[in-house]
């Protein structure tokens, strides 16, 4: 299917696919902002994200065209790297780009009924413009090969995100403190990151990641490089909601518009984790990061602490959105645990879980958005009896919920299984025990929600069936079915993660 789709694209366009993936939503954003009518802006966003998805497919087929994975390099403005800004795409980028653009496209389809109900009419066009800018930024982070350019795209997406979160104020005024809290922490994270990049630039004189990875091993024990490393890990850790730097996340997810929560939960932290992986494995390299075993003493304890602490916190929430938000932080812990193993199996399990979790959380928050539309609330009480009033929405919710727990035949099971086997391979049997333990906690917090949904009497028994609109149901079921598809037939996605990890650990073709 990938080859079929990419053969439809003419060669001249395919040659510029890395740029077009970012440029199409970028140029659509100001056009959408000037549209008088929100519906036109929505339609433009749909076209732009569809174009990005197509480009991501083209890029994937180009990367997979040779054995071991090709590396695409695109020189911005015709200035050859390392002096110019380069878009550099290998197996890892291609996977993240595919993920972001799939979620972006499906979320855009689903957004219209939800956004129309939650955002004032006069602001819808601007809302979609901000969303496209955010999407542009995330795609840019996932494709650039320049450390400073990565910072710029990270800020483009973050600033748009603050705006999008704050627009939840129409529904709930608590969105405003949530957005300003997110803005403060996000800005601190970005500043730390750029300070780190500055240190690297001072030590090496280059900003190109590929060249940095060549030059850094030549200057071992350089204090500036070490300081830069610390700044970058902490800065990206804030963006990725690494425990204990995750405090901005639960409120931002709980009070922003439903559509924004769906999109952010599935993409924003994932892209930050991608950036972290890129810096750890490509720029600094295994020797630098792991020889002093710094990563084992930082990433792994943080990952495990996040898994345990935030799963417990998720159990005690009364609002479903907050439960899922804390669960997101816990899932970030799983990814970090896999990555901190620094083996091909561990990193591929982490990346596989990154992909699966995006699909799981995307589906869960989409179902919740449908619930907000018909029932105006997301507390556990509002959920009661939803299984009877909205069976289609809630069945998809349940499938994704089971996948989050890690029930066999779902995507979540596949990635947790990969993680546990990677942990056992490295001899960390107690890590595997913790993964099983936090999965039990996931049974508890998802179980509370599913019990309320399916086994409690509806709040208002006279209420007739109130299903989410078809435009929500279709993307929701696409995601729910892909959960099962990955659970049964994990070759494609796991293959992407394995190729990316093999390239990171063993060093693919340069």
């Amino acid at each position: 299917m990938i080859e079929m789709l990419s053969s439809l694209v003419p060669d001249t366009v395919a040659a510029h696919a890395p740029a077009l993936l970012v440029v199409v939503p970028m140029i659509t954003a100001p056009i959408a902002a000037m549209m008088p009518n929100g519906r036109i802006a929505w339609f433009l966003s749909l076209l732009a994200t569809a174009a990005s998805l197509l480009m991501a497919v083209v890029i994937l087929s180009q990367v997979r065209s040779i054995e071991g994975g090709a590396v695409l390099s695109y020189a911005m403005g015709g200035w050859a790297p390392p002096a110019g800004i380069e878009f550099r795409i290998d197996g890892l980028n291609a996977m993240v780009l595919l993920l972001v653009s799939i979620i972006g496209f499906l979320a855009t389809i689903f957004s219209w009924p939800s956004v129309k109900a939650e955002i004032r009419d006069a602001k819808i066009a601007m809302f979609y413009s901000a969303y496209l800018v955010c999407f542009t930024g995330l795609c840019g982070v996932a494709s650039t090969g320049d450390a400073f350019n990565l910072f710029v795209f990270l800020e483009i997406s973050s600033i748009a995100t603050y705006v999008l979160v704050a627009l939840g104020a129409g529904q709930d005024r608590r969105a405003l403190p949530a957005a300003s809290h997110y803005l403060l922490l996000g800005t601190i994270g970005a500043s730390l990151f750029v300070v780190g990049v500055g240190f690297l630039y001072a030590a090496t004189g280059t900003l190109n990641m590929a060249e940095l990875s060549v030059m850094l091993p030549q200057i071992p024990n350089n204090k500036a490089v070490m300081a830069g490393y610390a700044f970058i890990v902490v800065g990206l850790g804030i963006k990725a909601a690494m425990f204990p730097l995750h405090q901005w996340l639960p409120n931002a997810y709980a009070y922003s518009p439903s559509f924004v929560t769906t999109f952010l939960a599935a993409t924003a932290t994932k892209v930050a984790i991608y950036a972290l992986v890129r810096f750890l494995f490509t720029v600094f390299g295994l020797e630098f990061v792991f020889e002093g075993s710094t990563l084992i003493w930082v990433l792994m304890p943080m990952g495990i602490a996040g898994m345990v602490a935030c799963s417990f916190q998720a159990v005690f929430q009364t609002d479903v959105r907050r439960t899922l938000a804390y669960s997101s932080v816990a899932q970030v812990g799983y990814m970090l645990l896999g990555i901190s193993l620094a083996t091909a199996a561990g990193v591929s399990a982490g990346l596989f879980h990154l992909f699966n979790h995006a699909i799981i959380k995307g589906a869960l928050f989409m179902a919740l958005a449908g619930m907000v539309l018909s029932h105006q609330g997301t507390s556990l009480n509002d959920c009661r009896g939803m299984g009877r009033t909205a069976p289609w929405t809630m069945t998809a919710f349940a499938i994704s919920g089971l996948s989050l727990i890690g029930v066999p035949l779902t995507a979540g099971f596949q990635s947790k299984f990969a993680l546990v086997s990677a942990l056992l391979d490295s001899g960390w049997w107690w890590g595997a025990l913790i993964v099983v333990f936090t999965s039990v906690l996931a049974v508890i917090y998802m179980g509370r929600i599913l019990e309320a949904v399916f086994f409690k009497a509806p709040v208002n028994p006279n209420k007739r069936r109130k299903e989410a609109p078809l435009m929500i149901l279709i993307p929701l079921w696409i995601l729910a079915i892909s959960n099962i598809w990955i659970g049964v037939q994990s070759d494609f996605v796991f293959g992407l993660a394995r190729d990316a990890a093999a390239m990171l650990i063993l060093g693919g073709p340069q």
Partner: protein
Amino acid sequence: MNGDHHVILRVVAKALIPIIALFGFYVHFHGEYSPGGGFQAGVILAVSIILYSLIFGIAPTMRAVTPGFARAVAAFGFLLYTGVGVVALIRGGNFLDYDALIRDEPGGHLGQHVGIIVIELGVLFAVAGSMVTIFYAFAGRVSEIRDEDW
């Protein structure tokens, strides 16, 4: 705007505002050879409008430069910048490859000159429009609690 004690402010501001706006464009077009460029020029241009509203009030300013117009200018600036990149793409170069904009004899740099001026013009519009929009958002805010209710 009664009371004659503002007369000096008003007269001086009226004299200064056109000069400030003109200086903004000077900073833009001279940015190629000296410190300056689109961002600084955009800020200076926006300052001339903000100064007007400080002296003559926010309402007449919003009549002269409507909030919708300011937003449209910001969006247009962004579009202009990206548009240059897309034109370069269509003419066979990479994204933002200014040399592809205008084909001249080998060794010529006409495309680079034109490209940088136009994208900086985009920056000027985007910055000026955004600054005025942000200023309006703060200055045009009506307080949610009336003064008597405090």
